[in-house]
């Protein structure tokens, strides 16, 4: 059969952000594909070298509109390591709370995007409606729905009053009940199964070859989670389970992400119940002694990596970030061959891409 190439993107209704995928198809079968990025490259690594350590917190927050808090957490951790600063315990707990709320809303956003891609509009509406509950909580805590500005170098900027603690706990209970509906859907719904079970299977070898991280790696049986393996903030004093599955298909990814959401609710509840008293931040110096530091954070999409190098001035000499979507995109390119064209949308949505993160 004749082969043809279908361009998807950089602007395309299927994509939420600019990304180019050239799909080689033969009839209804995908025989090859090339992924191209760079359409939202903003040169943020270079910009970081021109701003002070404190100003950069606001800049790295704007790399991503979904995991903005994970970016500032990783950046602040690296800079705090450089400065030799220990953040107050209360600040570490509040960082965890924001991280987990962010994970919940990111996973629900993903469920909505996937549902829309497989033609399940009702679930798209329900998932995004329930995601609003979490965004409202984050807005009430920090003042921002997307850019929360909760982290500063040395601690956090937002505090939680005892009344807010009660209110948040009540709302998290209500949210947890809502989640039961999605759990049931993923376990039982036949049309959801037909579009996701066995689709876009990624083997453990492929996870290793492309250094995949986060929920897609865990859905292929790779048992890694930095919150457990290299605990930061307050994770070492909180209890949670690392969720893995072994199917490696879109359904397993949905399963992992939904179960993780439930673990995140559990983590939020523990933080609110055990929130220690104390200061919100330690005062950070303006200049930093020469040195280098690394921070690794488990963002909603997996390992987020920051490297910061100081030359003794008030601006970093180098800031490097590696976001989880970058290896995921390369892996996606090699997952495409062999798919039915009708499943391409589900597989792209199932990868949970964040192009702004990958391009920086």
């Amino acid at each position: 059969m004749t082969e043809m190439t279908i361009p998807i993107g950089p602007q395309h209704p299927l994509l939420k952000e600019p990304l180019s995928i050239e799909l080689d198809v033969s009839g209804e079968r995908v025989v090859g594909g090339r992924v191209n990025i760079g359409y939202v490259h903003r040169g943020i690594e270079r910009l970081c070298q021109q701003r002070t350590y404190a100003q950069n917190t606001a800049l790295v927050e704007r790399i991503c509109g979904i995991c903005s808090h994970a970016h500032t957490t990783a950046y602040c951790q690296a800079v705090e390591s450089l400065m030799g600063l220990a953040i107050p315990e209360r600040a570490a707990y509040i960082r965890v709370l924001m991280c987990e709320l962010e994970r919940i809303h990111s996973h629900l956003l993903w469920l909505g995007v996937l549902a829309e891609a497989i033609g399940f509009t009702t679930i798209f509406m329900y998932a995004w409606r329930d995601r609003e509950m979490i965004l409202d909580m984050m807005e009430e805590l920090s003042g921002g729905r997307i850019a929360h500005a909760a982290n500063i170098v040395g601690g956090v900027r937002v505090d939680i009053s005892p009344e807010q603690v009660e209110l948040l706990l009540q709302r998290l209970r209500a949210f947890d009940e809502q989640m039961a509906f999605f759990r049931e859907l993923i376990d039982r719904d036949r049309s959801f199964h037909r579009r996701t079970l066995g689709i876009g299977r990624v083997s453990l070898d492929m996870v290793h070859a492309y250094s995949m991280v986060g929920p897609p790696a865990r859905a292929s049986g790779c048992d890694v989670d930095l919150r457990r393996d290299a605990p930061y903030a307050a994770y070492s004093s909180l209890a949670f389970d690392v969720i893995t599955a072994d199917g490696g298909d879109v359904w397993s990814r949905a399963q992992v992400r939904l179960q993780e959401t439930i673990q995140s609710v559990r983590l939020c509840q523990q933080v609110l119940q055990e929130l220690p008293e104390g200061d919100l931040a330690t005062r950070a110096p303006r200049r930093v002694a020469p040195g280098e530091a690394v921070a690794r954070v488990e963002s909603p999409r997996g390992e987020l990596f920051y490297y910061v190098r100081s030359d003794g001035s008030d601006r970093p000499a180098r800031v490097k970030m590696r976001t989880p979507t970058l290896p995921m995109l390369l892996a996606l390119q090699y997952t495409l061959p062999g798919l039915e064209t009708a499943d391409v949308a589900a597989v792209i949505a199932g990868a949970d891409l964040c192009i702004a993160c990958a391009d920086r």
Partner: protein
Amino acid sequence: MDATAIERTLGQACSAPVELLPLATCAELFVDIPSASLLAAMEGLMREHDLYHLTTITALRDGDGFLVLYHLWLGGGLTLRVRCSGAPPSLPSVCHLLPVAEWYEREVHDLFGIRFEGHPNLKPLLLPEDWVGPPPMLAEETP
């Protein structure tokens, strides 16, 4: 992560003793590797220490040349630090060992102009294909 065993493996790969240096700032190990021994070091780590995770490759300016950092994860953070110079600066590609390096090396090539010998497809990743001018991270002034 067994630091002594890793030192032994890397020492064999470099045919000279190496020392893993813990960062004073955080729990990550750094080690200097001559660029000629980079591939042997990676092969040794893959063979004896089950290395598969290359987190990323960072390049930075260092005097007249560059430092290229290969950040790895072996149940703990390990970074191989390689010095690179020349005109154009170049290093051997690790793509055939760690396929994920394909994009990381393209990115470093884009932003710093470092060539990776043996890379299957070293075209721009982040920059437009018709980009002219110095690599953006080396430009003296930002427009």
